């Protein structure tokens, strides 16, 4: 136990935990997008799937786990961020980036924007804060009409645009995260370069485009 707490508060250990929590969230996103894509299979598919999820006995176990992982990820990130700021109390007159990329530089900002998005997203579709969302049981199909909530929601163009921009920000955040993951967990084999620098950007692009396809399709009127 003592070893574990030493590990958690160490500079490297906390990063490893942040990386692992982030990875779990990333895996969740893959599952999430696969479920979302059912919308292209018509309202029945999506509604039945959503109904199964909502009535799943493990729903709250899952939700609390995700909440825990997200809080852990954010807590460690902020803690590291503050420590890092303390490590250089006086900044440089000329603060030049030698090779630093945009994604690397904006992790804390993209992270905060994603957090805001998550709150909005849960408020929008799960808690029904927007008038376009109805949480009542639809009499025709005897379940909540998630399909209609999504379509009605995204027909409001600012909502759809907000989702699209947020997905791009998630892509930006993931761009640095996935590369970092291998470094933080200690994989640095040359054979992995291909995986890290070629495959992960493609994975991120596919994920982000799959998410974006839904608000985009509603905006274009392909899904009604």
């Amino acid at each position, binding site marked *: 136990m003592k*070893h574990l707490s030493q590990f958690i508060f*160490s*500079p490297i250990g906390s990063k490893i935990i942040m990386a692992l929590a982030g990875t779990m969230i990333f895996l969740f996103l893959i599952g999430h997008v696969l479920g979302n894509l059912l919308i292209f299979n018509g309202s029945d598919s999506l509604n039945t799937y959503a109904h199964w999820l909502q009535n799943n006995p493990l729903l709250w176990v899952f939700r609390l786990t995700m909440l825990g992982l997200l809080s852990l990820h954010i807590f460690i990130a902020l803690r*590291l961020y503050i420590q890092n700021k303390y490590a*250089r109390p006086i900044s440089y*007159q000329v603060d030049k980036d030698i090779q*630093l990329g945009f994604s690397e530089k904006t992790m804390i900002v993209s992270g905060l924007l994603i957090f805001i998005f998550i709150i909005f997203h849960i408020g929008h579709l799960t808690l029904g804060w927007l008038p376009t969302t109805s949480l009542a049981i639809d009499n025709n199909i005897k379940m909540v009409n998630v399909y209609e909530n999504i379509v009605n929601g995204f027909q409001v163009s600012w909502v759809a645009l907000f989702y699209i921009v947020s997905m791009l920000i998630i892509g930006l955040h993931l761009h640095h995260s996935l590369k970092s993951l291998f470094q*933080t967990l*200690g994989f*640095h084999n040359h054979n992995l370069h291909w995986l890290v620098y070629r495959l992960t950007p493609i994975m991120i692009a596919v994920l982000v485009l799959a998410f974006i396809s839904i608000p985009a399709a509603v905006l274009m009127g392909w899904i009604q």
Partner: protein
Amino acid sequence: MADYKIKVWRQSPLGIGPGGGEGPGGKEGKFETYTINNIDSDLSFLEMLDILNQQLLQENNIPIAFDHDCREGICGACSLVINGVPHGPESSTTTCQLYMRHFEHNSTIIVEPFRAKAFPVIQDLVVDRSAFDRIMQAGGYISVHTGAATDANTVLIAKQSADDAFTAATCIGCGACVAACKNASAMLFVAAKTSQLGLLPQGQPEKTNRTLKMVQQMQLEGFGNCSNHYECEAACPKNIPASYIAQLNKDFLISSFTNKEFECQNDNCYES
């Protein structure tokens, strides 16, 4: 021959200068700009500073303090952040090996000390890098018996391991990695120093203790954490790759769960 404006950081943290007074730059420090003319393009950056100091002395001013020793790129004593880059704009080059031909005639060159909480300014451009020494004392060694040296090659070492350890061992401990890192993290230094021993058979007995102790000391000195930006790798005059940091991460993970001896000095290992 070229002329330059040198905008340089001057600070006397103790608040005392030679011959009384509060010393150049005062306690808090500030930038001063000096003009220097007729500089030969084949002079090194430090030689240019020598000439500037001579000029300051002749004008009855206090010369600028800066660190240097070998002036041939092998000791790690020289430092300086020149126009925002540790050791200046040329890659794989220490400040002492940087030549004035890389700077345009009539340009302003901004010279700052390495900035980090763990590297406090002693005077002007000289910073205290003894934090690195304390990290080394925490575990950057191997214990061997004294007596006759064993025959060469009694312990066989794979070529790849020998090469990797050697690359790590080219670290001259100058601190450019800390200066370049947005978080003032010393991870590349610690990674190089743990790897140069940990990749060889002679470094195995103390490996887990060494890794844990050096990482702990790094944190206690007030360096930041690694954000995988790799600015350190880009600034390193010896081109040590950031993959050594991945090696350190892996070693630390394994050491944390296999080492039974390591004990923290205080309740919380990582906060002084």
